[in-house]
């Protein structure tokens, strides 16, 4: 099977926290496999327009990232919004 076909068939799971769960309607969402965190943002924003105005940190394999990092189907992705309550 060619690589591109394997890629097409695979998907990635994303763990959501806080209000992002309300936007997506779930604690976890699946998206088609994408190559990096930059594409992840684009994909999320097109799938869930509510993400446009949401602030969140991206964790890949339990590390908060600040630069674009490559992703694969094994990556554990989590999106964490800031909380203000005290």
């Amino acid at each position: 099977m060619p690589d591109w076909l394997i890629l097409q068939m695979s998907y990635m799971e994303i763990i959501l926290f806080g209000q992002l769960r309300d936007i997506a309607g779930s604690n976890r969402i699946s998206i088609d496999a994408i190559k990096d965190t930059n594409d992840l943002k684009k994909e999320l924003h097109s799938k869930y327009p509510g993400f446009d105005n949401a602030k969140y940190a991206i964790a890949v394999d339990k590390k908060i990232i600040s630069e674009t990092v490559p992703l694969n189907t094994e990556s554990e992705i989590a999106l964490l919004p800031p909380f203000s309550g005290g």
Partner: protein
Amino acid sequence: MNKNNSYERYQRQIILKEFGVAGQQKLFDAKVLVVGAGGLGCPLLQYLAAAGVGTIGIIDDDKVALSNLHRQILFSVKDIGKAKSEQAANYLRQLNPEITLIAYNQRITNQNALELMGDFDYVADGTDNFATRYMINDACELLTKPLLYGAISRFEGQVAVLNCKKNKDDESVNYRDLFPEPPKQNEILNCVEAGVLGVLPGIIGTMMANECIKLITGIGEPLINTLLTYNTLTNETYQVSLSPDKKNQTSIPKDEKSFKEMNYEWLCTAAPKEFEIDPSAFNSLIQQENIDIIDVREFDEKPDINDFNYLKIPLDELEKNSSKIHHETVVTVCQTGKRSIQAVEILSRIFKDQKKIYSLKGGLMQWEKQKKDHE
């Protein structure tokens, strides 16, 4: 420490071999400032005082209300209408007369924060709004003080130890490394709007106390450079590690003067519709990294700008040069603030809601004037 009484009071923790008399002494010598005597602050204060932290500062300008009592467990019905900081201190003096409690019945702001925090070794953030959280973070960074961070939203809480090094050669991490850009207050709901179950701040505030005690006494593994999320509905925890983000270091004021000039309220409260910003808000914005400032005057117009980086795109060339604008936040400037309003209209048409576009009110003339008045 009064040896006989104290030993009996703290006996159950002193007999822990990791803790011991040495741990108790470290607690007694420590000075912790708790900002906010609310849902997080109450349990945090209660455990710090009970454990014997020698000096505890409590700063809050709020008064006790009936709707606080389901989660702010230091207060009772007779406290309603009274100052939280003072009532909390009174309660804790009853609990532990051996320690020093200092109540500050005032709001912490960037005008008093550095002075107040200066007297303490650790700062704990139990506040309820982003403007204060970013301000406290920046103050701790300027003073190189460890910051115990806790925050809640509905059924979830976050805890972390920020601005603190595990080893001498490590790099410390601050709140802006986690969330570089302050959210606007209306983007994220607070407890008043979103609701909160009383035990959540109880758990998260207690976790903050635990981290604080571990940090002071040097036992266990405090959440240094680590963010823990806890969910009360599922009992799930999730830990992620944090690392410094070089891009964001410029967002933090570089010295006391620029810290005091920051307009934190504005950073977190401006509604997108208010596209005209005044010189003080502009000063706060130009300290941010992720921003494009565009001078829409003609190429030969004076005065030249020397105080900040900017793009030069005259108004009538703006449309065809819009691809030069990369950042999410854009501020247009001109001589008097009239052409920059037109620039906002042009850019809003091009970028729609993708960017936040502002115009410097009164233009560079007003800004220069204000700058001179301050000097």
